[in-house]
């Protein structure tokens, strides 16, 4: 029974995760290493990579900050609208990314609410970089907060109170007490947030307009190349995203391992401490 279960699980994993992973690299390298790297150095591909990195560089810090602030507020204070805030944090997870993208088109598109005003001031959001960044921020904003809220709730407020009684100010309390206590959870959230920010397709696709070399992120570039039957180039760019995923998984495992080691050490030493 045990072997059957393990066999089914591993078989499923191989079929649905490992095989596609191998296929991506096989396709990407089907015409050899030369064309593989050439596809990366192609100007449109480079622009897509640059745009993806830019989006992540903006979205990840913004959502890290937001995540810390929101979870701090939710976990450590009681206020009116707390449940509402909790629900809103989850919104991007519950809404289809395409709908998220459409919301921004509705807001900032030419016929949208803020559209005329933006046009008057010669600002472009939809079918431009700001729209892509906005959509990415929206889609990725629960990752850090979701990771931190349960952690901070479990840790309670006593340590912060102790710091305040001892004369520490708000910032000192955060930097010396709260932040060290949440650092692994925070890192974990940031890694997941980054992976999604770079890999987001749906919402970005709606607001981007697919302008080659200008508003195509890597996932969009892959789609464009694929639709043009340029399979090896498509898979070549896709392989970069896949490598990002692999790196993310490794980092995630490392952080989890570190986290667990911390906990296990704590538990073991606590047990020893009691027997001493």
């Amino acid at each position, binding site marked *: 029974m045990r072997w059957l279960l393990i066999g089914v699980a591993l078989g499923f994993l191989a079929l649905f995760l490992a095989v596609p992973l191998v296929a991506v690299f096989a396709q990407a390298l089907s015409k050899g290493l030369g064309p593989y790297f050439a596809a990366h150095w192609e100007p449109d591909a480079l622009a897509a990579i640059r745009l993806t990195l830019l989006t992540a560089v903006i979205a990840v810090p913004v959502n890290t900050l937001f995540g810390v602030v929101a979870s701090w507020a939710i976990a450590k204070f009681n206020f009116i609208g707390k449940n509402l805030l909790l629900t809103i944090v989850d919104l991007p997870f519950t809404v289809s990314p395409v709908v998220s993208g459409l919301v921004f088109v509705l807001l900032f598109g030419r016929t949208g609410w803020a559209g005329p005003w933006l046009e008057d001031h010669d600002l472009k959001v939809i079918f431009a970089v700001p729209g892509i960044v906005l959509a990415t921020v929206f889609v990725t904003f629960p990752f850090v907060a979701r990771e931190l809220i349960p952690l901070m709730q479990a840790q309670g407020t006593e340590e912060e109170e102790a710091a305040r*009684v001892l004369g520490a100010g708000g910032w000192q309390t955060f930097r010396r007490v709260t932040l*060290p*206590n949440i650092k692994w959870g925070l890192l974990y959230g940031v890694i997941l947030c980054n992976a999604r920010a770079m890999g987001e397709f749906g919402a970005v696709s709606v607001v981007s307009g697919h302008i080659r070399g200008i508003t195509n992120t890597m996932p969009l570039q892959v789609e464009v190349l694929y639709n043009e039957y340029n399979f090896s180039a498509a898979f070549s760019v896709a392989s970069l995203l896949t490598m990002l995923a692999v790196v993310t998984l490794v980092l995630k495992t490392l952080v989890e391992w570190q986290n667990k080691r911390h906990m296990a050490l704590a538990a073991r030493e606590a047990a020893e401490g009691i027997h001493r």
Partner: protein
Amino acid sequence: MSIEVHNISKTFGTFQALKGVSLRVETGELVALLGPSGSGKTTLLRIIAGLEQPDAGSGPICFADTDVAGRSVGDRQVGFVFQHYALFRHMTVFDNIAFGLKVRPRRVRPPRGVIRDKVLSLLKLIQLESLANRYPHQLSGGQRQRVALARALAIEPKVLLLDEPFGALDAKVRQELREWLRRLHEEIHVTSVFVTHDQEEALELAARIVVMNEGRIEQIGTPEQVFHSPQSAFVMNFLGHVNLFHGRMEEGKVRFATVSCDAPDHAPASAEAVMVFVRPHELDVDTKRNGHPSFSATVLRVSSAGPNVRLELVADSGDQIYAEIPQERFKALSITRGSRVFVTPREIRVFAET
């Protein structure tokens, strides 16, 4: 430094935790706030510390006769020991104790060497010199408690506030720490207030006890006063074991459980229906009538382990009661389960039925 609070109220949502509480603690005193959970004792302690704000309309909170109600918790210079210690889990014992000194603004922060000496002397005081580089999770409960105390003392507080300081420890460690805290208080003599729901702890440790119930102070007094002269039915009931009878006042006498006794001086003259309290050790048990007012009862259970013998009785009136008699007395009487006995209350306390 003395502490004085006046007319403090605190409401959480619809729950009124404190209802106009006033209290004065003299310089160097060790005072216990004693009461069941929900009596407001921890809220009062947290308000004194500045961790909670009293409701608008509450009176001043004075430290050494200066109102500090407007001061933030960090500016009040109190030492606070939390129920679950609240040690900083990612810091060593040394860093935990040094924290209050290290976070001071640069111009009033002691130099590194001074902080180090201060921490080492505190480690010596709590007898944990060898554990300076341990982390909190590597310590036992009792050790954590002492580190929490050293951390609170590091900032040289004028007032030491302790929230259920021994609540999370097992009985033996509790007893040891209690002794230790008393000696420490005799040594450093800082004005101290601790919260407890354990009457034994309060009676043993405190110079004065503040008994609280439902957001009010029921009685303030020395351990002897609150134990021997309780001013309310609640205090009587909360401190020590009691037997409760429902009786009546009739012409200066108290009638309960088929017995009629002279009413004590403190008995309410006007009330008809009264609650009569008798502690188990204040009941005499005999196998025959001895001339004193007594009521008859049947022995339900005998437990003779311990310094006294504990008898579970059912009076003919139906009241179930406990009596404690010395071992020699028990042997002389030779009573067993099912014996008929006569019970004489030596001392009774009477309060109007509420």
